[in-house]
């Protein structure tokens, strides 16, 4: 029995496994290609068994695969090819046209002549899991963003409330009885100090004062320039 027939005999049971499985020799000749890989890739057993895997799937010529498979052919530890870093080691499409995402483990299998090792690829379809995780990540990010927005809105609200409370406090201080000097118009504060009306008001209300003279005071202070109301009436 030749090597390929022996492989079909030894590994035939793996046709019933729901994982993509193939076995290659050190020279990358494909010895076994299971039914699942036929379904996934559309490459049939007669098309690939006996020919080079790297000839059919060119990425296996890249150093990142060659260097790791080399240790497998020497009987080294199994190699993992994760879905995030490799996506689809065996290019394959799902019925909806999306890429079939795979997680693959390659293990050494003793060669039939006990000289060296074959590399056995076992590939799991993790598309569904990957999509669910992406959906979950999207939902989680959205939820986190909403929480952040709520926190920001809450902080804004708190700030506004504080500002309003401050304003209200000042308004309250301006309400009620205000002791004022009948002569100079100074106002007595809570501590009993007399303050100019401008100084007092600007502490408790957002006001600025500009100074000018009313007509009566102008006439009283500068009679040479201004007339009083009574003067105006006499003139008439």
């Amino acid at each position: 029995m030749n090597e390929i027939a022996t492989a079909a005999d030894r590994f035939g049971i793996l046709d019933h496994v729901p994982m993509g499985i193939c076995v290659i020799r050190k020279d990358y000749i494909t010895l076994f290609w299971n039914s699942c890989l036929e379904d996934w890739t559309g490459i049939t057993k007669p098309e690939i068994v006996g020919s080079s895997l790297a000839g059919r799937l060119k990425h296996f010529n890249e150093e990142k695969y060659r260097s790791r498979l080399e240790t497998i052919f020497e009987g080294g530890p199994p190699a993992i090819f994760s879905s995030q870093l490799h996506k689809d080691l065996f290019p394959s499409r799902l019925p909806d046209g999306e890429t079939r995402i795979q997680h693959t483990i390659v293990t050494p299998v003793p060669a039939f002549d006990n000289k060296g090792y074959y590399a056995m690829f076992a590939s799991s379809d993790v598309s569904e899991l990957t999509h669910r995780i992406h959906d979950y990540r999207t939902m989680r990010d959205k939820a986190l963003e909403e929480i952040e927005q709520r926190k920001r809105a809450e902080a804004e609200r708190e700030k506004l409330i504080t500002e309003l409370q401050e304003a209200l406090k000042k308004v309250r201080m301006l309400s009620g009885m205000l002791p004022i000097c009948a002569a100079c118009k100074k106002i007595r504060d809570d501590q009993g100090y007399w303050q100019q009306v401008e100084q007092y008001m600007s502490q408790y209300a957002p006001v600025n004062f500009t100074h000018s003279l009313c007509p009566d005071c102008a006439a009283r202070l500068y009679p040479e320039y201004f007339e009083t109301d009574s003067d105006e009436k006499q003139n008439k």
Partner: protein
Amino acid sequence: MNPTSEQIDALKELMNIGVGRGASVLNTMLNSHITLQIPFVKMLSCDELKAELDMVGKDRLASVNLLFKGLFSGNAKLLFPSESALKLVTALTGEEPNASDLDSILAGTLSEIGNIVLNSVMGSISNLLQLSLSYSVPNYIEGNVNSLFNMDKIAPKADILLARTRFIIEEFNVEGDIVIFFEVGSFDKLLASLKELGTG
């Protein structure tokens, strides 16, 4: 058999060759240039291991384990502290996972990175020993230190080798630590081989 300081240096050299190969493989796969260095190795007793693990931290850790059998049997374990794990994956894949989350996609990626590093180190050791070892399929576990190390199952007289590994990805100005543990029945065989080679 207690290793001499020369043997410890030789072990460190051997491990550095291994992680150097691991970094080289990672660099062929990824767009960023990663450097892996082992600043020191230590031989630990079971009690010393407990103290060392306390220093690794109480947080959740990701771990990749590789069991090996042969004349030299044991368990190689690579620990990623969460922060290092996230930094590595972010730098290497460009995806920014949430800090509180090591999901299944990340677990796969960390498994592969750990697998590459451990395989390279084991390759260096088995090449030196000229031994044919058989390996289990690596497994990935997450948890705190106590759940990752079952102290009851570690033989009291087991030799444990700790190699603190520093990774540096200059492009992203990222650095972090990975911890590699080897738990074996005895390192006598390895140390004897180092002596035969005249490196220890």
